[in-house]
């Protein structure tokens, strides 16, 4: 299958400094492709070069076979975009906004149905300025979909949504993908990317630090994980240190923490059972995209 999006060596400079520094990737039809990274990594700039909002300084970009530099109008008929931090006219009503944007496209979706699906039916006659943050966000997602796009770009999809609404939004985006739409998701939320994305590019200082499925990223990051428990009987820590895969054993008050790789946790539980040491508060910190991210980039998302 021909990729829906092909990016080769995309570069965007500001004042001589490359904010996006030669990134390459492709997105297959029907994929949810994530672009993950901390603030200032160049995620939004990169995506805005794809959407035709910014002109790239170097590299090749093809979306649905079109170059956003030259095929802007035809491209914009076929893509939908949710931008970060935009507002509409204060007195524009929800219904009017959807009706207006629907009128821009050759084959628009039924905006009334979008109104229902995105939980805005009761707000159809409400002015934009009177909407809550979550309602505004859902309106922008609906506006991104109103043109019946083949590719949707969503930049910080769930910004301003409460936890319940986030999960509902994820389900709806999965449905959008299931209907055959390709989705590019810009995010700095690990859980969102892990939940939704088929593949993820981790962007750092304008470059792709890693690109794989979320599970692949976790695997390639390898590394150790930890189990933590409270032994109900005296336990010689030394008896655990020698077990296969265990790299360290520590004690913090009543708790024992065992760090290791591979299947060390089974070995530890078997050893505890053999010694007839019951444990309480057992927790295994599974490897997540979060820890993989730290392992791959050498830093946490917040810094």
């Amino acid at each position: 299958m021909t990729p829906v999006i092909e990016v080769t060596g995309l570069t965007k400079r500001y004042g001589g400094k490359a904010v996006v520094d030669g990134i390459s990737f492709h997105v297959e039809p029907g994929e949810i492709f994530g672009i993950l990274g901390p603030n200032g990594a160049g995620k939004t700039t990169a995506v805005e070069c794809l959407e035709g909002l910014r002109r790239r300084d170097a590299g090749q970009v093809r979306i649905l076979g079109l170059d956003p530099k030259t095929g802007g109008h035809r491209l914009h008929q076929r893509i939908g975009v949710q931008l970060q931090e935009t507002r509409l006219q204060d007195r524009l009503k929800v219904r009017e906004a959807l009706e207006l944007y629907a009128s821009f496209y050759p084959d628009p979706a039924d905006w009334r149905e979008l109104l229902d699906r995105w939980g805005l039916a009761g707000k159809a006659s409400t002015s934009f300025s009177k909407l809550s943050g979550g309602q505004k966000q859902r309106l922008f997602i609906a506006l991104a979909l109103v043109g019946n796009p083949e590719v949707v770009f969503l930049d910080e999809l769930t910004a301003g949504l409460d936890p319940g609404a986030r999960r509902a939004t994820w389900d709806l985006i999965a449905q959008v993908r299931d209907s055959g739409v390709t989705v590019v998701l810009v995010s700095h939320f690990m859980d969102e990317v892990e939940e939704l994305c088929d593949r993820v590019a981790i962007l750092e200082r304008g470059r792709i630090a890693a690109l794989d499925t979320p599970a692949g990223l976790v695997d390639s990051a390898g590394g150790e994980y930890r189990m933590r428990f409270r032994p109900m009987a005296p336990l010689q820590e030394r008896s655990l240190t020698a077990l296969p895969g265990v790299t360290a054993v520590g004690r913090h008050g009543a708790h024992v923490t065992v760090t290791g790789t591979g299947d060390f946790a089974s070995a530890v539980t078997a050893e505890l059972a053999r010694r007839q040491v019951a444990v309480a508060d057992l927790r295994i910190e599974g490897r997540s995209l979060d820890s993989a991210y730290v392992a791959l980039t050498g830093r946490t998302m917040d810094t």
Partner: protein
Amino acid sequence: MTGFGRLALVEGKLFVREKAALIGVFGLPVALVIGFGLIPGFSDPQKGLSDQIGTEYIAALGVAIVLASLGLTGVPMVLGQYRERGVLRRLGVTPVRPLTLLLADLTVWAAAAVLSVAVVIAVVRIAFHVPAPVRSGWFILAVGLGIASLFATGLLAAAVAPTARSAAGIGWLLFFPNMFLAGIYFPTEEMSSTMRQVGNFTPLGSALHAIRDSWMGIDPRPEYLGIMAAWALVAGALAARFFRWDQA
């Protein structure tokens, strides 16, 4: 309907929902002509106003104020906001260009100005028997060039201002000196010749002269029309050159 038509319709609705704009564009000039029109003897030719009928003079003044407030304060304020809020950016990723919204807005505001002028003419005619502008062709041209020059100046303010707040601020900074020099606060007949000369070179000053003259039945001096046309062209070209669609 085209994107332009849709946007003009929606922006027209939004304009009507903005009560302050309605009061400024329709309420203020009408209140002005009625207030002054009720002064006894004001419907006679006034010596201090080059023998223009007082009410007619105030009507011309009302028209000029509407053009100035729409062009110099309305245009930069709204466009500055649309840029800062990302309304223009958001349109930039649709098949409709942000330029279409800008043109739709200018059309709506120009239509509002023309409608307001018609209302003022009707009110002074019905209430105070002031005849409609005598040199109607010149009057229409004067109002048209007034709209073009003042809107272009407002556009330039919107183009160079970095934020919505500064766009509105520049608008007000243009508005008050223009009003002063144009003879809105006191007639140009009472000004020193230097001040009058300076005022003639402002878009509002030449607009008010051309509107007063054509209303009275005098052909407006070509330099008034020329000055307005020059403002429209120069400010318009600079605005087109420097307008940013995106907040930096």
